[in-house]
């Protein structure tokens, strides 16, 4: 019955890309189909008319487009075959996998005929199926309430999206709130950071689409059909934010004093406190780890806002997408004892210097040493923990420390022109406009020494900074009475934790990894989760805001555009299913779960690998799209064109391997004509019986490639091992089957492996 289907074949010349190598006249003569036509550029807009007219004129049921790779134009031709169902069209890749990898015209032409024939046989097995559209809820969780998270939230809220900010500390604001002064390379001036932050904070507080949860953490995450179910745990504040008017009487009576972490522990605060003057929510909070529970605050509070019996609360938050903005922390100076940070009060970090010079800091903006005097010489040491391959160091450059040092040096010079400031650097990295700020700093008489100090020791009242002046080539000892360390930025604990909770990839340095750092910024490797700010890599405020708004734009794209999913995924026959749960435990992609006493398959995470099929005793699962039949038909389509003495190797690859194979063509490398690549939705769908069938019907070799990052990799590798044993028992040579790792970037390796395998098969054939 399927043999009666009317198939139309459309051959594309692709300028000369295809027609210069492949003899298309020969191709037309060799294929027996209802319609076959040849066109210069099928993907151009008039291709749509050509294809549609032919479908009507010849009553076509199925279409094969023999042109470029489906990776390039499958979507285009799925659209051009309207009104046919998009899945009744198949592409034969005669460019990337034929004309671009072979130069012998006769053999390339024969291979093109073979590939097109395989597509014709395959497409006859296709049925009309509809793509699955998933619409994600237009609600977003922004994790982290620093400058990046705040901007991402605001941008989305202004576009009408409901946003929940989940902030771990008692106030939003993040690092920017405590920086003191920020600078602009264009204005060449330092400005009040809080004055820039406050309007953003206010706008956010008044926006009705934003809810802020402080003292809150995401502790669990689960994804169902595009909806994330987040379990958020909120630690108690012990102060009712609705009632507290932030009058501060409670803190006045509190007798417990502890180091103030917001001031980098350079001053003290009470056990009941407000993190900083502009903190939001505008309310006090009790640090229960240090509270003596004396009850003084409770008795003093006129508003009766203090609630000592509050308990942690867990709540469920359902969102369509997530923006991770969990930020950074600074390098732990205990790891570099040679600089004396833990031993000497006047060896400080740039962050602490920012607090000291901040008007809301421990000294109200006065630059003072621990003994209350103004330092005579401040030496700044760059690259502490950055550009450092020593244990616990970071190989990367933290990007902002050069300009931070320049800023703080300028701030010192403005107020204390008599204080000598010397910056010990390896390279001053001030790209773009920042270079002007560097010159401005030199004009302010800040001094620079090229050398990376090895240690700081105390000698009498002063420190000795030991370094080499590498320009003079001279070992120098510099006396200083304050040393400031430019510490590396590294992923915050929150960043590391959320990566684990949400199961998103991180870089070797522990930052959140973008799905493609060059052309897919802000997307993570999990659909619907985006990243911005210093959770992604070290960056400054401006870059954080830009990335935050980019992430917001991507979320909107995703929320409004919906997600189209290929329909070739598992389906449950509810009549047969006994809800035994076997499939749930087998599925490597965690796409199955029980909902309302039925097995539910999340279409977004199911890859159609078919692992669940094998283990279902009730045979209640099917994978849409006749995948099995299509594989068999494709094998037949290839092998039926085998000529006397021709070597035929079948290569099964999924989307990743297929892309790598395309890259061989794109880069104009080559491999033998015997190689016939068959694209499958999952390599796991190539079953032992397919391999056996192919070998028994003329295939000389079978090559199976899988990306090691695929969750099914181990499984497939194990299975191929078993298949080899099995076919050996049946009298075939197991060396005719091979399994190999494939990676998109290593297409040269794949070309070599394909060539090597062809040589091996040639040897085996000759030995026979």
């Amino acid at each position, binding site marked *: 019955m399927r043999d009666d289907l009317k198939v139309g074949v459309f051959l594309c010349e692709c300028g000369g890309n295809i027609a210069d190598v492949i003899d298309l006249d020969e191709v037309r003569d060799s294929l027996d189909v209802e319609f076959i036509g040849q066109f210069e550029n099928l993907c151009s807009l008039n291709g749509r008319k050509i294809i549609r007219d032919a479908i009507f004129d010849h009553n076509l049921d199925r279409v094969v487009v023999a042109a470029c790779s489906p990776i390039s134009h499958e979507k285009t031709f799925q659209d051009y075959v309207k009104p046919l169902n998009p899945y009744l069209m198949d592409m034969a890749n005669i460019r990337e996998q034929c004309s671009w990898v072979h130069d012998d015209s006769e053999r390339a032409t024969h291979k093109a005929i073979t590939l097109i024939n395989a597509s014709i046989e395959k497409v006859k097995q296709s049925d009309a199926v509809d793509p699955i559209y998933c619409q994600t809820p237009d609600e977003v969780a922004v994790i982290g309430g620093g400058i990046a998270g705040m901007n991402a939230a605001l941008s989305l809220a202004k576009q009408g999206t409901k946003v929940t900010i989940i902030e771990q500390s008692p106030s939003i604001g993040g690092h920017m709130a405590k920086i003191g002064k920020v600078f602009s390379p264009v204005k060449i001036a330092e400005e009040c950071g809080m004055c820039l932050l406050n309007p953003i904070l206010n706008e956010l507080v008044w926006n009705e689409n934003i809810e802020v949860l402080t003292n809150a953490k995401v502790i669990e995450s689960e994804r169902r059909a595009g909806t994330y179910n987040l379990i958020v745990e909120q630690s108690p504040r012990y102060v009712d934010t609705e009632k507290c008017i932030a009058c501060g009487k409670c803190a006045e009576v509190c007798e417990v004093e502890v180091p103030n972490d917001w001031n980098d522990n350079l001053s003290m605060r009470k056990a009941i406190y407000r993190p900083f003057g502009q903190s939001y929510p505008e309310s006090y909070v009790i640090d229960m780890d240090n509270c003596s529970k004396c009850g003084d605050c409770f008795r003093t509070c006129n508003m009766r806002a203090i609630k000592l019996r509050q308990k942690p609360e867990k709540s469920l938050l359902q969102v369509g997408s997530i923006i991770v903005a969990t930020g950074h922390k600074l390098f732990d100076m205990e790891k570099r004892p*040679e600089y004396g940070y833990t031993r000497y009060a006047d060896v400080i970090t740039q962050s602490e210097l920012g607090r000291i010079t901040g008007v809301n800091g421990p000294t109200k903006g006065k630059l003072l040493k621990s003994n209350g005097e103004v330092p005579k010489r401040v030496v700044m040491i760059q*690259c502490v923990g950055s*550009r*450092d*391959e*020593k244990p616990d*160091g970071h190989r990367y450059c933290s990007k902002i420390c050069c300009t931070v040092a320049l800023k703080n040096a300028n701030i010192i010079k403005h107020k204390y022109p008599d204080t000598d400031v010397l910056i010990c650097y*390896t*390279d001053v990295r001030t790209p773009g406009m920042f270079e002007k700020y560097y010159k401005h700093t030199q004009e302010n008489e800040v001094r620079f020494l*090229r*050398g*990376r*100090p*090895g*240690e700081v020791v105390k000698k009498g009242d002063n420190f000795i900074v*030991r*370094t*080499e*002046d*590498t320009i003079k*080539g001279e*070992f120098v000892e510099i006396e200083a009475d304050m040393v400031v360390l430019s510490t590396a930025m590294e992923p915050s604990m929150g960043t590391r934790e959320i990566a684990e909770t949400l199961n998103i990839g991180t870089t070797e340095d522990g930052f959140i990894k973008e799905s493609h750092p060059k052309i897919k910024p802000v997307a993570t490797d999990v659909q619907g989760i985006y990243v911005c700010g210093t959770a992604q890599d070290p960056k400054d405020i401006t870059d954080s805001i830009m990335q935050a708004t980019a992430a917001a734009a991507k979320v909107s794209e995703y929320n409004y555009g919906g997600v189209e999913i290929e329909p070739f995924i598992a389906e449950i026959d509810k009549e047969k299913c006994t809800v035994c749960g076997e499939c749930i435990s087998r599925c490597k992609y965690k796409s199955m779960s029980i909902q309302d006493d039925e097995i539910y398959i999340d279409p977004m995470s199911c890859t159609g690998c078919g692992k669940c099929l094998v283990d279902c005793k009730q045979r209640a699962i099917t994978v849409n799209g006749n995948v099995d039949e299509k594989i068999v038909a494709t094998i037949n389509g290839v092998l039926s064109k085998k000529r006397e003495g021709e070597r035929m190797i079948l290569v099964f690859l999924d989307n990743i391997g297929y892309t790598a194979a395309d890259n061989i063509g794109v880069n104009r490398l080559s491999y033998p004509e015997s190689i016939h690549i068959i694209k499958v939705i999952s390599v796991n769908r190539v079953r032992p019986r397919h391999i056996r069938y192919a070998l028994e019907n003329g295939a000389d070799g079978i090559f199976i490639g899988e990306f090691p990052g695929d969750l099914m990799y181990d499984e497939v590798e194990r299975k191929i091992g078993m298949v080899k044993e099995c076919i050996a028992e049946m009298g075939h040579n197991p060396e005719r089957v091979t399994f190999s790792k494939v990676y998109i970037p290593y297409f040269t390796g794949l070309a070599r492996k394909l060539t090597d395998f062809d040589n091996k098969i040639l040897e085996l054939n000759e030995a026979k």
Partner: protein
Amino acid sequence: MTTQKITDSPIDFAEDIILDVKNSKEDGVLKCVQCGMCTSTCPAARHSDYNPRDIIERVLEGDMTIMEDDNIWNCFYCYTCHSVCPVGNSVCEVNQILKQFAINNGIGYDKLYEYMGFADSYFTAAIGAIPEIFFEDIRRDVPGWWEFRQNLGDIRDELELNPPLMPPEEVIDEVSTILTITGFKDRIEKIRQSQEEE
């Protein structure tokens, strides 16, 4: 002014060092950014004109004259540069390789001659003992060392340290044989002769 000719390949010198069996840092030497952290912690740099950063600079420039520079003999292998280098280089190892290059080129025999006592002790005791010619200096510089040295046998007895300080005769013979077969002895002789002739 120096001219770099189109046919010059200064990096070859660094390549030779990388390929040397003593080099444990792979391409470390090529990653040097001349930050000077090695020099800032180097005891030899503090007390002499030895400059570890400069050593790497000259190696990367392909400056072979460094083998003739007396300064390379001032490094005593404390490995501080090795442990502080932010790019994972080891000047200390590079220095050892340079010294070996120098010796292979007949340079530095006079420097080695001072240490012949160490070499001799391998033959006489099968261990690297401190040569007697240094005793006076150490006695002056290290308070208490001489007394310790005099009473070492008693101290070891008291601490019940086993085996005895000196290896047995057959071990000494075996080590001597190995050193002779492997050509160590010939090299020592060559160095000694070259210096004693002068």
